[in-house]
């Protein structure tokens, strides 16, 4: 029998919803789905390639060698006392993690339109799975970096030395992931409506890399001081500088700059999640 009073419904579907209704509980309940997405990404990417996950090594290695010849040898952008290959590997591992998170998240609606049109699950699962898949990738690239790192530590002990800030690595990873997801989700909202922004993003990412100290140190002598101020305003810069300072004892580090970066990350990530959550509700009608 139905009681005349207020019934307790498990779900009410209505036209409007609170902006802050993020369904984080749903996300937690779907953690198994999250792990399946990560697994699918990983297995599906490398199942039929001959070298398998070795590709994760090859890509940064070849890029580093290319950078060595172009930026270091040809253009003469010096990396200080840090061996160039090590410098580039460090920069690229970090940058790749951030940019992959951002690019994949930015096209999340386009890439998953078929899936999103057929079944409901908290959409936030997909950016999270992107973050975790790329974390595995970062892990593998990081191993490559560690290999070279140990070699140079032994071969040229005077040039580089680790500092206790090495323990900040998890914080740096959270910062990179946060920036990647936050920016990616903001862009995903825009591209789901105005598709041409995807093209803008591809070269935007590239430009962003050059204004971030990935392939040059922030302390590079040839940067004029008045430009350096702008480079320092880039909230991504402290992450890379801290990473290098932690592992090489070389570069700049300040808690203030890292805090500045963290504030940016939190603002971007929160607005990203809110925007994503809003777009997710209506995007099926506009695709």
């Amino acid at each position: 029998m139905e009681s005349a009073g207020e019934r307790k419904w498990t779900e009410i579907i209505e036209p409007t919803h609170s902006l802050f209704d993020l369904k984080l509980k749903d996300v937690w309940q779907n953690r198994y789905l999250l792990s399946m997405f990560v697994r699918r990404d990983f297995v599906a990417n490398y199942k039929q390639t001959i070298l398998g996950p070795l590709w994760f090594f090859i890509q940064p290695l070849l890029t580093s060698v290319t950078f060595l010849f172009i930026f270091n040898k040809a253009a003469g952008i010096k990396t200080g006392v840090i061996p160039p290959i090590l410098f580039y590997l460090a920069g690229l591992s970090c940058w790749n993690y951030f940019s992959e998170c951002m690019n994949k998240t930015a096209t999340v609606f386009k890439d998953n339109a078929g899936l999103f049109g057929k079944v409901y699950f908290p959409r936030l699962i997909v950016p999270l799975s992107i973050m975790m898949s790329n974390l595995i990738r970062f892990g593998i690239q990081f191993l490559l970096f560690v290999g070279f790192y140990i070699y140079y530590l032994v071969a040229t002990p005077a040039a580089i030395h680790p500092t206790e800030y090495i323990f900040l690595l998890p914080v740096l990873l959270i910062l990179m992931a946060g920036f990647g997801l936050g920016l990616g989700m903001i862009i995903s909202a825009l591209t789901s409506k105005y598709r041409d922004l995807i093209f803008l993003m591809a070269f935007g990412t590239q430009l962003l890399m050059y204004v971030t100290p990935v392939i040059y140190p922030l302390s590079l002598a040839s940067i004029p001081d008045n430009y350096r101020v702008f480079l320092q305003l880039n909230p991504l810069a402290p992450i890379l500088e801290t990473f290098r300072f932690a592992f090489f004892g070389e570069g700049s580090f300040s808690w203030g700059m890292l805090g500045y970066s963290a504030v940016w990350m939190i603002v971007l990530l929160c607005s990203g999640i809110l925007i994503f959550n809003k777009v997710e509700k209506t995007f099926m009608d506009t695709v």
Partner: protein
Amino acid sequence: MEEVVIKVENLSKLYQLGQIGSRTLSRDLNRWWAKVNGKPDPYARIGSVNDRTKKDGNDFVWSLRDINFEVRKGEVLGIIGRNGAGKSTLLKIVSKLTKPTTGSIKLQGRIASLLEVGTGFHPELTGKENIFMNGAILGMKKWEIQKHFDAIVDFAGVEKYIDTPVKRYSSGMYVRLAFAVAAFLEPDILIVDEVLAVGDAEFQKKCLGRMKDVSNNEGRTILFVSHNMAAVKSLCTKGLVLKQGNLVYQGSQLDAVNYYQSSHEANSSFMHDGSMETAPGNENIRVLEFDVLPLTGDVLTISSGLEFKLAFYNHKENINLDVTFELVNLDEVVVFHHGVFISTDKNSERGIYNVSGKLPANFLNTGSYRFNIIFGENQRYALFSIQDLVLFEVLNETLGSNSQTLPGVTRPDIPYQVSYKTKAG
């Protein structure tokens, strides 16, 4: 009385056709301004109905209009209507894939929707991996999948290939595996779109049987959309009919099917009078007109015979173009599937083609039929296919002294010869 587990109130959904999102900032801003001021959407014209065959100079269409109904626990509700009547939109809203424009749906219990089989299947993953992947997407917990794993594999009949990537599966195996996962979902409310339209007949029966068991024995509530009237009759306990976004009938499943079949839902002619880009079709083909007419007299009867006429615009030049007509009765029996070559020397031309065909008198039995049309290249690649383009009814006629409706798909006028042979001896 069982308690109400789904309560739909004043549900409406407005869709914009054509260039969605307008891509113009000014219009978007305009709308946003109206919304901020609490005014209705300035681009939504009230009163326009969901009729894609008519163009009223309005890009907005009410895909659903003020729908109200309730479903009680354990009921199996069949939702019927022509293409574009709003069935899929309704399921999408219930499945939380899109938001309603107005109104609400209140639900009680765990919901799973099955709008497609094999959602999230990845060709590189093995059958086993895909069972877990698909199960997770459909909202199953890991232990639930593990619990049913053997039963799923058994139901699909793919034991031998369970560790093979599904890209090596035949399409039949693929569909069976995909459906098997879904068949073992254990939600309180299950939403099923026409997923049964795939797979072979035997497997379809098995799936229908499984669904029936689930609702009878486990008290599960099911929303079921289908064009298969036989399935609706046997599976559902209630039915509702949608027409152009409005709920026009609700009652028992048998009454709903009867209403649908006898209502003016039947429409023997299709005519597109909008621009070429909005005609049903794709970048290859646009269907402009399709008519079913009696050969003799004014009404389609068993003895009138019929002629069907198709006009379409072809965009694909220099190919071997063919058109296949498929006539299906309301029990989903294919009466015929028959095609014709439009061009055989790779010389199709861009432009409007007319094709017509005739069915003789005393061929079709009385009943309702629909045409599917498939446009192909080299009889191999489908360029475009359209279902249910027209729905028409062949009226009964007295044959001798018998005025009853006779069973059978066809109703031939067979020239019998009878002779009596005297007993030997």
